[in-house]
């Protein structure tokens, strides 16, 4: 055979899991593979821990099922589709959270989300007491479970926060074996992990098929499997440095890879992907959105480690209005550019003019407070983020602001407040965004916000318009306090009406009807405000064109929120303590209490 066919043969053999050395291929190895992909959530967890050490917490007989599915005529599962287990890996005590992809596509609801969050928090508490407990997260999910919309979205924010709390003390290992992959909000959590292990069948991406729905098949054809894997598949993610270890679908190989990552311990502060803003900026600078690279070219441009990319920065686009595929900027009504973000940041920063950090991110500094807003920018070279969506460069800019503020105030007696002015139609839905790893960029924004909050900055989110999905996860949902205007134009949700109706096989009318009796589904901000994480709903005369009195009302509410944040916990634990949470998040509280009780049971055995 020619060297070329040899190479092709070797590559094919490796893809099947054979050990290729010189001229020989050890096919025996292939015959003895045990598929990990075919295992259910519990069996996957069992396959990773040392034999006989598994202990399931909050298992099926605790009946911590979702309270929201049965009223929607959906059969619940007794453990809500997440297995939490303790055990040892290579002798080290660990906790595993394994998502069952067969139940509701692995979608994160109130209970399944609370289980992951509480497992991470308990591991962090043990670690602080001197017994580091690494976490292994088996992430197979489409993201937020749309049947529990707003509670799922908040659950993802809480998972991210708890993950970051633990990550400083013990490694958090993300495993994306497939076949669902890690999508939606959970992809952001994946981007926060210490170490990511993936198979060629696995995928990591913020937006899945929904891109086609939002932007048309010419932007991203959701039936084109080779395109999808080329952009978000395991091999591509590994070879562009967005995952750390690529293994074939074999339980023994996954077990070895996880064992190695556990033994490596926590990564040093500043070295996590989501902290490397230098790399994020340098990588984004190599992209020309008007002339994007093919996915395969990205491997050479960026390299397979998350460091300074080999490629040079792209020349500034000749015309900022360029887009590669005509027609891709068409957008639905809810993505018409809104002026509310700019209006409110300008009004609140009285006496100063907000300055553009980038064309789409505004910053205003007043005495003791910094305001940040993402606003529409018709000339944004990333054309899928022109109507105020949170895209790659918006995340990079936001993350850098939060980091810089935290550094600036490091030695001040009182750290300044940071106000996220929120009017976001969503995250950016686009092919370039997925290829470049929008999940990783959002992870950088989430990480920076959490770090500022933990450092002692009161962070207040003020929702003045739309706060949808990944946009809100990136900018707002990590705040210590969340305020929203009581206005029909204020919409907080996991997905806009039309798309949510489409995906849950309902009509918009049915969805609105369900929202009347199932609070997390509602698009009404007054109902959202009862879920337990709204700190105040503010009455204004006009959300669109605020009067002087309106601005005064909101400014006073912000001062109050800042004061509460200064005296409250630095983490997000107060979201379970409000009077509303005691009513509408009973299930989350039950999860917290059950897991706490079972965490150390039988630990002597």
């Amino acid at each position, binding site marked *: 055979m020619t060297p070329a066919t040899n190479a092709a043969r070797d590559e094919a053999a490796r893809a099947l899991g054979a050990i290729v050395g010189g001229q020989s291929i050890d096919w025996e190895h292939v015959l003895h593979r045990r598929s990990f992909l075919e295992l*259910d*959530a519990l069996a996957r967890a069992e396959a990773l821990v040392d034999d006989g050490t598994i202990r399931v917490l909050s*298992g*099926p*007989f605790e009946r911590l099922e979702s309270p929201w599915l*049965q009223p929607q*005529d*959906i*059969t*619940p*599962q*007794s453990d809500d*589709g997440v297995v939490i287990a303790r055990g040892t890996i290579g002798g080290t005590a660990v906790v595993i959270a394994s998502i*069952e992809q*067969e*139940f509701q596509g692995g979608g994160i609801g109130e209970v399944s989300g609370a289980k992951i969050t509480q497992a991470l928090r308990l591991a962090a508490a043990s670690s602080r007491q001197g017994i580091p407990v690494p976490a292994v997260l088996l992430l197979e999910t489409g993201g937020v479970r749309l049947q529990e919309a707003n509670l799922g979205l908040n659950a993802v924010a809480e998972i991210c926060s708890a993950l970051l709390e633990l990550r400083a003390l013990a490694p958090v290992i993300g495993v994306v074996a497939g076949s669902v992959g890690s999508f939606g909000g959970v992809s952001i959590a994946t981007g926060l992990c210490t170490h990511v292990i993936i198979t060629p069948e696995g995928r990591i991406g913020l937006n899945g098929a929904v891109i086609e729905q939002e932007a048309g098949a010419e932007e991203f054809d959701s039936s084109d499997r080779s395109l999808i894997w080329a952009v978000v598949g395991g091999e591509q993610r590994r070879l562009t440095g967005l995952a750390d270890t690529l293994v074939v679908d074999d339980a023994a190989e996954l077990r070895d890879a996880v064992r190695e990552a556990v033994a490596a311990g926590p990564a040093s502060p500043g070295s996590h992907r989501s902290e490397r803003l230098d790399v994020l900026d340098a990588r984004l600078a190599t992209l020309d959105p008007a002339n994007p690279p093919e996915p395969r070219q990205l491997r050479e441009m960026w390299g397979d480690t998350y460091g300074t990319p080999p490629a040079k920065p792209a020349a500034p686009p000749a015309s900022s209005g360029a887009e590669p595929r005509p027609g891709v900027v068409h957008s639905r009504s809810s993505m018409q550019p809104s002026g509310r973000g700019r209006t409110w940041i300008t009004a609140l920063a009285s006496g100063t003019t907000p300055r553009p950090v980038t064309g789409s991110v505004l910053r205003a500094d007043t005495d003791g407070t910094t305001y940040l807003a993402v606003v529409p920018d018709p000339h944004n070279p990333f054309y899928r983020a022109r109507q105020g969506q949170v895209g790659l460069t918006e995340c990079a800019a936001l993350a850098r602001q939060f980091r810089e503020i935290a550094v600036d105030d490091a030695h001040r007696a009182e750290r300044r407040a940071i106000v996220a002015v929120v009017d976001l139609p969503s995250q950016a839905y686009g092919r370039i965004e997925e290829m470049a790893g929008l999940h990783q960029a959002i992870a950088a924004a989430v990480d920076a916000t959490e770090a500022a909050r933990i450092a002692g900055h009161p962070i207040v989110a003020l929702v003045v318009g739309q706060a949808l999905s990944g946009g809100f996860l990136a900018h707002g949902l990590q705040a210590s306090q969340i305020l929203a205007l009581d206005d029909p134009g204020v919409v907080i949700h996991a997905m806009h009406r039309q798309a949510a109706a489409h995906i849950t096989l309902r009509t918009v009318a049915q969805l609105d009807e369900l929202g009347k009796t199932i609070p997390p589904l509602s698009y009404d901000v007054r109902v959202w405000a009862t879920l337990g994480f709204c700190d105040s709903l503010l009455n204004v005369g006009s959300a669109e064109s605020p009067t002087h009195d309106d601005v005064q009302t909101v400014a006073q509410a912000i001062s109050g929120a800042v004061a509460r944040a200064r005296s409250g916990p630095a983490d997000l634990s107060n979201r379970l303590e409000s009077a509303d949470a005691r009513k509408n998040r009973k299930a989350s509280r039950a999860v917290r209490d059950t897991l706490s009780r079972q965490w150390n049971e039988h630990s002597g055995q």
Partner: protein
Amino acid sequence: MRTLHYQFPASRNPARRAHVGVVGSGDLEVLVEPGTTDGCGGAAAHAQVRVRTSVEGFDEVWQATLERFFARTPVLGNWELNDAGATPALVTLRMEQAAEATGSGDTPDSEEAS
């Protein structure tokens, strides 16, 4: 979604509780827990079954499937079936797996559970 309740004559005590399956499309999960009395302090003579199913209009199929199962495998206890459209054959298979996992085995009236 539909919730159905049944009881069937049974005689074998499960030694332990058991859980099998997932509520995935075309599949179901089965939970069995020992329940040793009839609610009046006497020894139970019936298995209690609750079915929650996403598919409506199959009450008689459930009745027939469960009746046949308990005629062959009369395992006592509280049975919960959370169903996402499994075929009768798969229902029977999962229930057999669950019965086996309870350790009720072939020994009638095992007292291990009490």
